């Protein structure tokens, strides 16, 4: 057991030494793997952030109704009753034009601008909370309300969020495809690196086999090499993503301050980071395994 551990430790040291004997090509390999992995990972984290925004916005679906500017108080109370009795509507909130103006002044800090207005440009509005959130029901409700008299403009607020959701779904699929393709690339890169190493060490492999080396003994250093190279590539991808997000956040903070918001991009979570590293190490190992198995078989056949 102890000698087994010592042997693995030795192979590990040997792997690090081999990475260092050709630092430039090792570095370039690791960089290529890092860049390849950072593309889908970056896409993933951006989608994740967009999803966060969408979740914050979506809440319960709402329908906003803006009334004609010359609707009377009587009409408003009649509409309120009719809306409250509607089968598809759970709750109705009336926002008078005065309230709307106040809210606008408070939330956006445009008091200076609105203060200079001669008269309130905002209409009365209803905010309607429908019962279900089935998009077909919501849309038919919207169309029905549009036909009511004095209803100037009816807007289904969740519509664009749903479009965003659909877009995110599309984006996730694109990222998945990208991830699969680049995973193949990573396996191919490792396969080729290991192939070159096997070719230069073919003599050593043949001699080792002649004096009693098992296949797993011969495979081991190559598998370690693939694993370590993949892991370093994964680490590089992680660094690329983390540094990029930090840079984006610095610039983003200037931008979002103008909109009086404190939105910032979320970094990779611990779980996501661990997944990235494990996955990259596994792909490196897999590339090495395929390469060394194929070439061992060739050497045995010879």
């Amino acid at each position, binding site marked *: 057991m102890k*000698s087994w551990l010592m042997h693995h430790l030795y192979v590990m040291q040997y792997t690090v030494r081999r990475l260092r004997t050709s630092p430039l090509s090792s570095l370039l390999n690791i960089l290529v793997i890092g860049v390849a992995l950072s593309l889908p990972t970056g896409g993933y984290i951006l989608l994740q952030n967009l999803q966060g925004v969408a979740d914050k916005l979506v809440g319960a679906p709402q329908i906003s109704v803006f009334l004609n500017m010359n609707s009377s108080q009587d009409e408003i109370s009649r509409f309120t009753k009719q809306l409250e009795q509607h089968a598809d509507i759970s709750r109705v909130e009336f926002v008078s034009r005065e309230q709307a103006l106040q809210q606008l002044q408070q939330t956006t800090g445009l008091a200076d601008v609105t203060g200079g207005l001669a008269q309130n440009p905002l209409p009365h509005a209803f905010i309607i909370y429908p019962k279900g959130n089935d998009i077909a029901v919501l849309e038919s409700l919207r169309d029905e309300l549009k036909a009511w008299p004095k209803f100037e403009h009816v807007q289904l607020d969740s519509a664009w969020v749903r479009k965003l959701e659909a877009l995110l779904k599309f984006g996730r699929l694109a990222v998945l495809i990208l991830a699969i393709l680049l995973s193949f690339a990573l396996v191919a890169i490792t396969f080729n690196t290991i192939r070159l190493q096997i070719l230069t060490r073919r003599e050593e492999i043949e001699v080792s086999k*002649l004096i009693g080396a098992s296949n797993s003994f011969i495979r081991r250093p190559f598998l370690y090499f693939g694993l370590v190279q993949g892991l370093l590539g994964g680490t590089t991808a992680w660094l690329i993503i983390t540094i990029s997000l930090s840079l984006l956040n610095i610039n983003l903070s200037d931008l979002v301050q103008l909109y009086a918001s404190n939105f910032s991009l979320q970094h990779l979570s611990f779980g996501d980071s661990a997944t990235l590293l494990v996955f990259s190490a596994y792909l490196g190992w897999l590339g090495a395994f395929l390469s060394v198995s194929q070439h061992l078989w060739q050497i045995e056949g010879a």
Partner: protein
Amino acid sequence: MISFKQVSKRYPGGYAALKNISFEVAAGEMIFLTGHSGAGKSTLLKLIAAIERPNGGTVTVNGQNIGKIKAGAVPYLRRNLGLIFQDHKLLFDRNLFDNVMLPLQIAGFDHRESAKRVRAALDKVGLLKREKAIPIALSGGEQQRLCIARAIVNRPSILLADEPTGNLDADSANAIMDIFKSFHQVGATLLISTHDENILREFKGRRLSLKQGELQS
């Protein structure tokens, strides 16, 4: 220890390297395998080390049937054999010490115990002082002695040597044969293939003489 029963070996293409070979080797014997090049000496040794498999008959080494041995068991068979090659098969990217260390690494020996064994093996072939040199700096005879050190470091019970003195001058060849004789004296089983008349004249031991793949009696 080693037994051949009506063994034949054909290579792809139909060339028959060995035809109907039968013999037995007892533990502790020193045997000279003679014959011209192409007589089948190398093939016979390769069958013992499971580098080749027989087409007919049975080869038994240490109680194992080489024709039926599983691929996974071959490494363990070879660890009990010491193989000495005419072309040495040394690794030129590492020093003498590491060359001899290789079989022990493969067998998974403890590092400190291995270092002792490596030095003992190098000492036995007279190369201890040069353990830090690389094989390219050695003469032909020294390279062959290094190959022997690597073959014996595992303390195998059987040593197989394929033309160990093939390219060497008489003095170097004698030095190598003296090393083999000392192993024979401590009880190792040796199978040495050679066509060197001087050696055959000087050293006693059973002869197996091959001619065009057949054993001469």
